[in-house]
């Protein structure tokens, strides 16, 4: 049981650190979409905005 609680505490700490770091790095956001992406493929300008019909 204590191991599970330790895992939960660890997970929460990592999540808080990660999201805090993300927020800190995006504090100068100008409002336009900024992305991180895997691989060397050319990134599209931004997310698709309109739902498909």
């Amino acid at each position, binding site marked *: 049981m204590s*191991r*599970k609680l330790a*895992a*939960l505490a*660890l*997970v*929460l700490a*990592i*999540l808080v*650190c*990660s*999201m805090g*770091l*993300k927020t800190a*790095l*995006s*504090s*100068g*956001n*100008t409002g*336009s*979409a*900024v*992305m*991180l*992406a*895997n*691989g*060397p*493929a*050319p*990134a*599209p*300008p*931004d*997310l*698709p*905005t*309109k*739902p*498909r019909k």
Partner: protein
Amino acid sequence: MPGPLALAIWYIGIVLEIAFVVCSIARKSFFRYLFLNTYFLLGLGSDAGRYFFLSKFGLDSTEYRYAYFYTDALLTLALYVALISLYVRVFGELRLNNFVRFAAVLLLLGTALFSYAVVVQSEQRLVTTFAYELSQNLYFVGLVLTYILWGAVLKLRETRTRVVQFILSLGLYFSAYAACYALGNISSRHVAVQYMSGAIGCLLPLTWTFTMLRHTEESRLEPARLLAVAR
């Protein structure tokens, strides 16, 4: 279509991804580093799919955007699994494999839940925004996890050269992307930022291929004494 420089970076990245898989097969380490190879094989599949949509519909098309962001989410998940496989390798001797796997699943669920909470009120298509948000959040989780793993490598005095260099390369890769993200937030439309992202994508296959080529499974390396934590 994107410019010649962006395409050149992409082609170099594809060659490096193939090189890593070929090197692992040649060095008889394909199954030993199965999840790392799976990540690059998925990357190659994604590249093929992205190229199809890019050449057929163009860079600004909705089709390419969907293909790009969905494959990106899939690749980020694969990279997360690859990172956890390195955790299992480092903590294997301490018999903490089950704990690591349990925590990894819990962390993935937590990140997914957090991402869902962020996008649930979005006016845009929920699945796409969720895939994008999850992908971005997992990046930062991966970044933090890599630094924790590096701390564990120093503390446990891990000496396997390949494992150490894989982890260092991953740290470099995540950190470079984080820097690119920060730079992009300051000036997202800057041309250099767009090329940087592609160039960083080549970094991981390049360093991992180099490691696979240069070192064998038996190679050992001691982290510098200055960095090693005293027991």
